[in-house]
């Protein structure tokens, strides 16, 4: 009985006593990915969703849905055991607390979200995923093909809106090798920021790291007015900029989640 009521005492050194995933380094990882002194707690209202199998460790889809949490200021997606832990930091200024993205996995690891709420504290959730090694140390496909420069920073996108509904869906895809710096002599080089606006209103800011998968592909739920289009500005770590505009196209079909 005593053991059952005092699990914290049994946690190995380095394991956060409340961590449901019992990751070996969570306290250290939190120091790397969150602001100093961040207060954290684990909260099931944050849904971190991904497939049961990491079929491709270079392109692993992760979706964070924190719409059940009021007042979300930021969402950070990170993987404890990746060499670049933080993948993306997303500030939904006028958007739902929802992001889907693909990341790299370097080995079996917890994949998590940290969600900052109004009082400045952070909510954590996530799960373990098994993965073959090397997602961060294999060369990007476009480096192997040699065509990365021809399409660099090319932006694709699509917007799904429903008349009278403020919540839209926005898919963005940017061609970028997202070099981690762990392959041969190729230095790290990544798409580092995206900013979305509609008619001058700031919708969202994203800060990305090289642990986001090659050719970053992102789904967001911005808040739009009828007839809005979304302008996108971005910059990579070499100072190359991108700009584009995504206009409303298709209605969200009934029954879509």
């Amino acid at each position: 009985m005593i053991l059952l009521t005092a699990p914290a005492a049994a946690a190995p050194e380095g394991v956060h006593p409340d961590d449901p995933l019992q990751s070996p380094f969570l306290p250290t990882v939190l120091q790397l990915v969150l602001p100093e002194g961040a207060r954290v707690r684990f909260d099931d209202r944050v849904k971190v969703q991904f497939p049961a199998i990491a079929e491709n460790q270079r392109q692993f889809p992760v979706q964070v849905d924190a719409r059940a949490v009021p007042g979300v200021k930021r969402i950070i997606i990170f993987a404890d055991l990746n060499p670049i832990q933080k993948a993306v930091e997303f500030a939904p200024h006028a958007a739902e607390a929802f992001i889907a993205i693909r990341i790299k996995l370097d080995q079996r690891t917890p994949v998590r979200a940290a969600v900052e709420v109004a009082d400045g504290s952070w909510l954590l959730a996530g799960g373990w995923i098994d993965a073959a090694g090397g997602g961060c140390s294999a060369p990007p496909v476009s480096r192997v093909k040699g065509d990365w420069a021809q399409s660099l920073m090319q932006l694709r996108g699509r917007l799904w809106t429903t008349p009278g509904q403020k919540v839209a869906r926005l898919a963005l895809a940017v061609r970028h090798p997202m070099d981690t710096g762990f392959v041969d002599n190729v230095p790290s080089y990544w798409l580092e920021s995206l900013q979305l606006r509609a008619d001058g209103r700031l919708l969202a800011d994203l800060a990305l790291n090289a642990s986001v998968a090659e050719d970053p592909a992102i789904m967001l739920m911005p808040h739009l007015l009828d007839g809005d289009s979304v302008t996108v500005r971005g910059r990579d770590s070499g100072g190359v900029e991108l700009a584009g505009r995504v206009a409303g196209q298709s209605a969200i079909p009934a029954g879509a989640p």
Partner: protein
Amino acid sequence: MIARRHLLGALAGVPLLAAAPEYRLVAQPVAAGIWVVRGADAPIAMANGGAIANISIIATDAGAVLIDAGASHRHGRALAALARRLTGKPVARVYLTHLHPDHSFGASAFPAGLVAATPAVAAQVAGDAAGFSTGLYRLLGDWMRGTELPAPALVAEAGPVLIGGRQLRLFTLSGHSASDLAVLDEATGTLIAGDLVFHNRAPATPHADLPAWRRALDQLAGLGQQRLVPGHGPVDPTPGTAIAQTRAWLDWLEPALKAALEAGLTMVEAGDLPIPPRFAGLAVARLELQRSVAHFWPALEAARLPRVSD
């Protein structure tokens, strides 16, 4: 020194290793002189040693013919011993239906001169086998000890082949992978279809070309077989049930993924799509759907998101 002697003494007191894992293979008669060793209807895992594919054994006067060789050296060796017990003769030839490691890596246990594959598969052995091997060692550990896939020395060509008085017909197709071999035993009308056909198990698509796969299924449907041994799942006692089932899944999968993308779904949501009730009898359907999303989604997305750069 004391500490070390202590340690050695302690080790001497316990079994050094758990017994090396052994494959417990069961042959199931299919037709006169043909058996199948059924694979587990599960993903490759430590619990099954990678023995998830169906392996067929055919008796001939010249020796046993194996269609596929298992996942590891030890698996191949166990299959060879089983074939000898069943047929009274050693293995005379091994046909590899395709390169996927659950079917091919057991060829490690046979001399290259007994192993036949299409030229495309032989070329893949030189190119892709190392990557598959790394993945298998990670998943299977000690089961894989000593496994090294040889370059097949014999060429499998489409057409009739006579081995020890047994007339076989080979079909070189593609679609499940870049090169898929199917084998028809003329005397019994048994079609051994490799992974072009799955039965009561969802098809796997890691290297699939869906239009080519459909064409291959069309061809397999018209060979006049009595029964069919699929790459995974139970033997189909009819000529076409498993072929139709495989085709139905592929026909559902591709439009379902395209529709999901058109509807603005994410990859995660596509992997959670409802699976139609008619596929309720297929093992690992959810897992294979999520794998297929990983295989097809990025290319579908690239084709369906318009360029919007200024």
